[in-house]
């Protein structure tokens, strides 16, 4: 058989995209998931704070996932679990996906449209190259989270955390609650990379010190971790001599960034964006290969799952429109990041596919106070978003009405951080 839409990944992005595609009229939708259950990373994110935008209530990760899983099951969307995608091949109208699992063996799946929702992975100690030994006891925060929350094992008792990403902050509290002694969270930058609320309720509540502008300069211990040397860094992020402090610990958790997982995307020859490490996408998350869509953390790393769901609805809609032949392929606008902005998604907009507004997601490069984000086409200011505070950790959500954009025939939309007009 030939599927209408095959979704690669059964996490929050995949579930929302599959549900939307099915609701919007795609008949044969299939989800392929590599783990043993649907829900993706949310299954290990047992903390609360999810769903405030989507459901207007505060849910834990598994609860949030379950709402989407329920919808997918009610719509009768079939799924494969424990199934690994080996490759995606674009043969024009029909795409071929090779997958394997224990039950069905090696399978070839054919489909008209594909939605890529493989999510992201954590940056490792290897990637950041911390000097010192390579003992046991150094974990990415997510690996530790899975061990504790799903498998019921503690990775250690005396803990230092490097990086103030949200998973690191959440794990500081989680390990404290489970009886560990979390001695410090070190952050290289002069600001936190996590949400402010997580600093309050995960660190401040438990008197865990957040050491900003600090890094780990040496890992001690040949077999199991014995301690870390922590030092303050200067403006160029280089350790300042004489500020060294030795902290004995048996566990180091790393929360130093997430990287979209795009091996399948790259191998399929899909155009990538170096700024996001994800594919270049349009307003309905269409990629450079017609019929292939992408959404969620595989496109760019989100801080809130609610925005993943929001984005994934677009991709699901795009996929169903594509198979119905309703998707326009002529890009009207491209987007780019100007001063102060790190990236913008989507990178392209085809106006004929836009309903009422286009939401542009972007991240600022540094902390800004009392600034505005302005959108320009040429020299023409087309929209402004005021923010009291702009943090790299918090994605900016910039909506522009279709009517406003329709005033311009085409061009490049440039987003910049500027002083507010007095």
């Amino acid at each position: 058989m030939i599927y209408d839409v095959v979704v690669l990944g059964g996490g929050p992005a995949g579930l929302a995209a599959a549900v939307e595609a099915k609701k919007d009229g795609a008949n044969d939708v299939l989800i392929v998931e590599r783990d043993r259950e649907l829900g993706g990373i949310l299954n290990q994110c047992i903390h609360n704070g999810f769903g405030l935008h989507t459901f207007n209530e505060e849910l834990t990760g598994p609860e949030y996932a379950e709402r989407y899983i329920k919808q997918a099951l009610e719509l009768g969307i079939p799924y494969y679990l424990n199934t690994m995608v080996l490759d995606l091949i674009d043969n024009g109208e029909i795409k071929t996906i090779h997958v394997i699992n224990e039950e069905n063996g090696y399978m070839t799946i054919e489909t008209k449209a594909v939605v890529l929702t493989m999510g992201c992975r954590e940056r490792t100690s290897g990637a950041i190259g911390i000097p010192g030994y390579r003992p046991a006891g150094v974990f990415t925060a997510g690996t530790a989270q899975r061990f504790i929350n799903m498998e019921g094992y503690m990775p250690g008792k005396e803990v230092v955390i490097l990086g103030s990403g949200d998973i690191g902050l959440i794990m500081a509290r989680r390990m404290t609650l489970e009886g560990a002694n979390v001695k410090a969270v070190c952050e290289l930058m002069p600001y936190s990379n996590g949400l402010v609320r997580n600093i309050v309720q995960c660190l401040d509540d438990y008197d865990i010190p957040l050491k900003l502008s600090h890094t780990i300069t040496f890992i001690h211990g040949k077999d199991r971790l014995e301690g870390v040397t922590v030092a303050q860094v200067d403006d160029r992020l280089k350790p300042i001599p004489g500020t060294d402090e030795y902290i004995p610990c048996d566990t180091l958790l790393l929360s130093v960034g997430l990287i979209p997982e795009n091996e399948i995307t790259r191998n399929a020859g899909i155009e990538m964006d170096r700024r996001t490490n994800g594919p270049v996408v349009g307003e309905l998350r269409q990629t450079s290969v017609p019929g292939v869509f992408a959404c969620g953390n595989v496109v760019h790393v989100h801080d809130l799952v609610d925005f993943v769901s929001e984005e994934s609805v677009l991709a699901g809609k795009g996929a169903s429109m594509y198979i119905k032949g309703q998707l326009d392929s002529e890009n009207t606008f491209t987007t780019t990041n100007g001063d102060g902005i790190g990236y913008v998604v989507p990178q392209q907009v085809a106006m004929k596919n836009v309903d009422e507004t286009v939401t542009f997601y972007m991240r600022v490069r540094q902390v800004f106070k009392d600034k505005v984000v302005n959108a320009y086409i040429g020299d023409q200011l087309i929209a402004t978003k005021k923010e009291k505070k702009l943090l790299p950790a918090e994605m900016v959500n910039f909506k522009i009405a279709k009517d406003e954009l329709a005033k311009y025939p085409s061009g490049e939309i440039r987003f910049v951080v500027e002083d507010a007009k007095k």
Partner: protein
Amino acid sequence: MYDIAIIGAGIAGSYIARELTRYKLDVVLLDGENDVGNQITMANSAIVHGGYDAPSYKFKGRFNAPGNIMYEKICEDLDVPFKQCGSLVVAHNEYEMATLHELYQNGLKNGVPGMRIIFKEEVHQMEPNLNPDVCGALYSPTAGVVSPFELCVHAAENAVDNGVTLKLNHLVTDIKKLDDSFKITTTAGDIEAKKIINAAGVYADDIYEMVGEPYFELLARKGNYFIFDKEAGSLVNKVIFPCPSKKGKGILVAPTVHGNLLIGPDAEPVDKGDVSTTSERLDYIKENALKNVPSIPMNKIIRSYAGLRNTPVKASFTTTDGDFILEESPVKGFINVAGYESPGLTSIPAVAHYVVEEIVVPMFPDIEENHEYNPKVRKHLRFEEMSDAEKEAIIKEDPKYGKVICRCETITEGEIIDVIHRSAGARTVKAVKKRSRAGMGRCQGGFCSPRVVEILARELNCTLEDIMYDQQNSAYILSGKTKSAAEEVL
């Protein structure tokens, strides 16, 4: 009582153990670590050298080229990945070109086949990503890259299959010379053997001093390395060496046999056992690697590590300064295989043959050949390298090959179970990584290490807390269960 005890199960000890199984000898292979090939073998440049460096009067010059020639066959027998990609020693000026000519002449003396001095245009055709300033190179087509730990592990496996007894976690603490044998005291009991082969790497001088007056001394010289994501793996096609200086071979840039990119090593005298990386050294490597390959993407680094060389600083009584020490020591029946640094990996097939035939065999007048010797290990089924039809067939035969555990390297549960149950099988997460590559990819085990711990515990019939990352007892991964209060009731 064993005929021979080999101390040290690195590449030298493991390969010599295998070579010894050509004869009917009772051999025990001892190591203080929790796995074979866990020190120098685990962290080096992984290069199979052409053999033009060392002078022909040294063992290093004598065994390199013949060892290289033997690689294709041994890697086939032992099922070890080996790529004969060739190497370039590059020159930036006429002065360095002169050095290349010297190396070329030396290579001819050592019997290195196929070398050529090549000039600017051809160099850049071969390696488009080289620094445009490079004006020539010594091209050595027989050089290559190998997986040193897989070679060591498979040699140990083959040795065990052919009758060698492997004893890990047996750290030698004392040796007594008896009348016709040696009593070896280890952290896990005493062992008696008629002869000893000392292949204890950087500790070989300490081991020898347990029985004899010191006559050689080893200096640990540390080298730092970086490994890059496979995305950077095709930046160079060949091993790129700078022109050697008095300090050594310099910082090389090389493809790895598994498709990554490797840069390193520096050289710094350190205390034995110091395998820590340091930021100044890592920066030095980056700087120097960029001199020959300016476009190395430093944001694609997936791991940095350091390894040791065991450099002889005092001459032995039969060989010249700085050479391998391959000889029966003044203590009769005690053979030293020491100072075994580069090109030790390349030379090992030839060196093992020499040690066994020229030193060991004459010690046993009634020695008999082992007609059951099988040089081959059972083939490893590497899922990622299979054709579609083979993949389909293997999952039908064993569904565990349909479950991918390591996403980055596409390593299946079937492959992991296999490396656990082989001779000299994996007992730790690191041992699984060395053998199967699970955890060697860009996520460095983030996703798969919890699964690997589970599989190890299941296959070895123990609890998850029992599974070590590396060293026995001390390199634990998990400190205990959560909710121990409720667990105790159960």
